[in-house]
């Protein structure tokens, strides 16, 4: 198991090894990080960009890769008014370099050894993918139960990998299998519940709040539900 690193080291250089744009408005980056320290699945990295005049912008992105992957994989949603995500989505090419710092965060991180229920919405599935990959790499798939939500299957990041891992897939704008279009409900989560699980919930503020409420309603202790959110509240 990787060491529990909760405070990140200094800024270091990431060299872009691969760029894919698997879905519209997203970019998947494979990075070779100088002096990379193994992360825990669920942790994130900070990316810092520097303009010619010295202006810098930095944002945090969840890691999609397992710690055993020699490269660091980020999966970034392009926000129209985002100055870092638009650069990563529109400009970055293999061979480019920029600064990164990480891994960050000791809370939203799976230890790889205890049962966990993973609940993700949209690009909130990214840190959960790192957990799924880590379980596969260590032969501990039986520890994880996964439920993910997206508008449509085509808009679900890592859809093939998540389905191969047995994830329950909820689509809000189209039917999926025998399940009609609709939001995540307790009925979706109930079959995934097991004794001793820690729940990891990641998505927009609205999704995270709804999923957290569903889990507490199912009997999860609030202290065993770990939440990571992104995006504005809309207020």
């Amino acid at each position, binding site marked *: 198991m990787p060491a529990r690193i909760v405070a990140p080291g200094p800024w270091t250089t990431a060299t872009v090894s691969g760029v894919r744009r698997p879905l519209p408005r997203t970019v998947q980056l494979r990075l070779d990080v100088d002096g990379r320290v193994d992360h825990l699945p669920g942790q994130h990295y900070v990316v810092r960009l520097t303009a010619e005049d010295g*202006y810098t912008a930095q944002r945090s992105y969840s890691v999609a890769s397992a710690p055993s992957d020699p490269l660091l994989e980020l999966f970034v949603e392009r926000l129209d008014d985002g100055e870092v995500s638009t650069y990563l989505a529109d400009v970055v090419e293999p061979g480019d370099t920029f*600064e990164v710092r990480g891994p960050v965060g000791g809370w939203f991180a799976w230890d790889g050894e205890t049962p966990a229920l993973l609940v993700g919405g949209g690009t909130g599935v990214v840190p959960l993918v790192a957990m799924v990959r880590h379980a596969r790499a260590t032969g501990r798939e039986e520890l994880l139960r996964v439920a993910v939500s997206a508008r449509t299957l085509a808009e679900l990041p890592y859809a093939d990998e998540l389905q191969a891992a047995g994830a329950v897939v909820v689509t809000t704008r189209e039917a999926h299998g025998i399940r009609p279009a609709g939001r995540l409900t307790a009925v979706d989560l109930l079959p995934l519940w097991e004794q001793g699980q820690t729940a990891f919930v990641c998505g927009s503020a609205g999704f995270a709040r709804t999923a957290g409420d569903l889990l507490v309603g199912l009997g999860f202790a609030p202290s065993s539900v770990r939440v990571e959110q992104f995006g504005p509240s809309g207020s």
Partner: protein
Amino acid sequence: MPGPTRGFLGRTRPARDPRLPPGQYDVGADWPVLTAEPTPRISPETWSITVAGNVEAPTTWDWDGVHALPRSEYRGDIHCVTTWSKFDTQFAGVSLDALWDVARPTPEGRFVMATSKSGYTTNLPLEDLTGGKAWLVWEFDGRPLTVEHGGPVRLLVPHLYFWKSAKWVTKLDVLKRDQQGFWERNGYHDRGDPWRQQRYQGD
């Protein structure tokens, strides 16, 4: 310091707003929600705030009790460690000084652990919570503070990164020695001054 990132221009920036600490951006009208646990439901009728630990008069105020203290407002900026800053916010509640005047920290009491209904904790030096720099607030922009943003009552310490402004706060323990709270145990800084970019332990 490395050179520029190829092709990175960044936002158009006629002049950097002097209110923006280093590494931050102006989030505009948005107010992102960031919490680590499910959102607790707390009614004003059952909420209370307790000041205890190294104080001469440990005291608990309920909703009516805290409203009987002199109203105090904050107008200004807030800064989140995830790099957004929000300008010209308006909060109303009560200055923490009004609570300290009653509870009276002892001379050995130099640090505070704030605890929320959710179990969230954060540690701060007492001197960051005195002298008109910190509040308990229940109004934002003239309306009751919503539960997503820590309602009914949250801590407000706007000169530090916003994770120090504990949502759903119910207890302030005055300590002789600093102890780490929730994010501080998980890699974040013990003080969190945005102007010195004290984001992570060791910064």
